[in-house]
């Protein structure tokens, strides 16, 4: 009995301590720092709302945030649109190779993100695979994919597609396709079956996939740094600059708090549409 209690306590306390130490404590430090100031690389411990006022009134930071928001929504919607047919194909026609197909999606994760970005930079750059081939064929290089927001967009799609496909796949694999057959038997056409049966019953998995792409895109710093070009600075990149070269940590902390709050609110709103039992993450299978 005592052993069971100890076990239960350990199971609860270890992750709680971990979360407190590595999540709550740094976040609290970030919040406190965001109400201070930095001056000539020194922290001034005077309580102020100046950093938040700066973020709310200075056009530059609003622009970075809006750019990131548009990018994150665009990337996530595109990813869902791309992931659905891929996941659907694997689930419906993958047969005994389904598991192999789904494992193939994980392969890009075996290399680091920076490595994948550098490879992508080489591919989309002026002397890269795409433009190199175009130049060799006598055509003009595609300027829009070189150091631009379009290049960042392509990179985000490349980076997060496996995540979204896996999520939709997990949702679909738990979906009872007999429901679709029943709808068909009742005379519903394919479009109606999809919009009224398949899509709504897999909405949870789709929303999880959407969020898994949306949140990292909103805070991304590496992609715009490597591929964004002079007009591609996003919110996360600007935030990283505050902690790096410019040493304006307090403003960076305020940017972090704003990002955290926005992501939390977005997560909360979208969570209304999530029924975890249908996402495939519960291990409960079909209910």
């Amino acid at each position: 009995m005592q052993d069971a209690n100890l076990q239960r306590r350990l199971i609860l306390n270890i992750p709680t301590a971990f979360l407190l130490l590595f999540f709550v404590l740094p976040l609290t430090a970030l919040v406190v720092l965001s109400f201070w100031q930095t001056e000539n690389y020194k922290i001034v411990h005077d309580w102020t709302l100046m950093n938040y006022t700066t973020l709310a009134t200075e056009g530059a930071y609003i622009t970075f945030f809006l750019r990131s928001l548009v990018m994150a929504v665009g990337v996530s919607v595109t990813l869902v649109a791309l992931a659905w047919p891929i996941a659907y194909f694997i689930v419906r026609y993958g047969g005994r190779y389904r598991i192999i197909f789904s494992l193939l999606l994980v392969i890009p994760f075996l290399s680091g993100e920076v490595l994948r970005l550098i490879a992508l930079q080489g591919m989309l750059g002026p002397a890269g695979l795409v433009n190199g081939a175009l130049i060799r064929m006598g055509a003009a290089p595609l300027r829009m994919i070189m150091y631009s927001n379009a290049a960042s967009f392509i990179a985000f799609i490349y980076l997060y597609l496996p995540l979204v496909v896996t999520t939709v796949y997990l949702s679909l694999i738990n979906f009872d396709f007999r429901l679709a057959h029943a709808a068909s038997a009742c005379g519903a056409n394919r479009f109606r079956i999809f919009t009224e049966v398949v899509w709504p019953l897999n909405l949870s998995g789709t929303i999880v996939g959407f969020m898994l792409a949306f949140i990292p895109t909103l805070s991304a710093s590496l992609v715009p740094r490597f591929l964004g070009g002079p007009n591609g600075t996003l919110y996360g990149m600007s935030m990283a600059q505050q902690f790096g070269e410019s040493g304006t940590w307090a403003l960076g902390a305020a940017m972090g708090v704003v990002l955290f709050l926005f992501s939390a609110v977005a997560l909360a709103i979208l969570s209304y549409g999530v029924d975890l039992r249908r996402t495939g993450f519960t291990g409960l299978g079909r209910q």
Partner: protein
Amino acid sequence: MFDTKLTRRSVLVAGATTALAMPFVRPSWAAPDTVRALMWEAYLLPDQITAFEEANKVKFVPSFFDGNSEAYNKLRVGGSKEFDLVQADGFWPQLYFREGLLRAVDYSKVPNASGYLPEFEAEAFKVLSDPKSGKKIGFPFCWGAYGITYDAGKVQPERTETLECMFSSDYSGMLSTSARFEENIALAALLVTDRLGSRDKPRPDGKPFNPYVLSDEELAEVEKLLIQQKSLLLTRYQDNPTLFQLLQSGAVVAATEFAQVFRQLLTAEAQGAAPVDFRHALKMKEGGLGWVDTWLVTSGVQDGAKFDLCNSFIDLMISPAVMKKIGEVAGCSTTVDLRSISNETERKLFLMDRSNEIADLFMFDQPSSPEKWERVWSNVQAA
């Protein structure tokens, strides 16, 4: 209260505790076992580091940074006790010393310091002396400028005599600058102050003109200029290999850089790459930015074995053979006189006979207000 009985369990617990604690328990008289350096990655020569480690029976632990402000932040946050050696350039060592992050050094304990080029000898190179006490605060290492590397087949050499070249629509979409905000702003400031004629007017700090100390009016003009420049840039490169590719492929015809890529391009050409007439303009008519990378010893290092070890490391780093290798690997000019062990091509390539030009360049420095400069840079990025 405590169970003092000697059981197998208590022996095992005591043994395990002692074993776990051993790495942290060292007698005070023990020799230092690590040398921790905060440095630029380009200067790390693995074979030399291994030789140093074996010769001194220590472990060399490097941490890397890109810009000076980043190193300064790391040093301040970690405290000077986190590192034994640190690198910095321009006027940054003086700032570190003022803030008590560095200790004074002794040139007599570093024999290879006698091999410096005349401009970098202890008496001549005042940038590495504390203005108040006159104490020497570090050792010069490599030097260079933030000049313009260009393809002379596409950009006429006389166009690079002025900074206007980097803001000319003639090269729209074929220009590139580094992503470092301090140098972008300071270089644009040279052009702006030249246009405004404000250099000879009273300066905000009451000292002679320094492109890192700007008035609000000058900063506003710099912001406008950098926003105009944005549409002309292909990208702001993050690293030298990217710029190398851009220049070699012809996508970029002129870029501001530390001459390292310029040398790598010439070396590549000598090794069989397609010949392109790449050149480097060190200083423009509006002036130029210069840097001298240094080795500094932090204030956490006390006299004794650790200080001797630091001196020994610096001595190795500035020895002619190692300096030559570093010049080749990192593509930079060295402060040590290597002319007797270099051929004519190397003398030209590494500007060995032009080191006196460093005196005409504005040294890298701390921005007068990092907050204002950050705002300018953000406005440029968002525009």
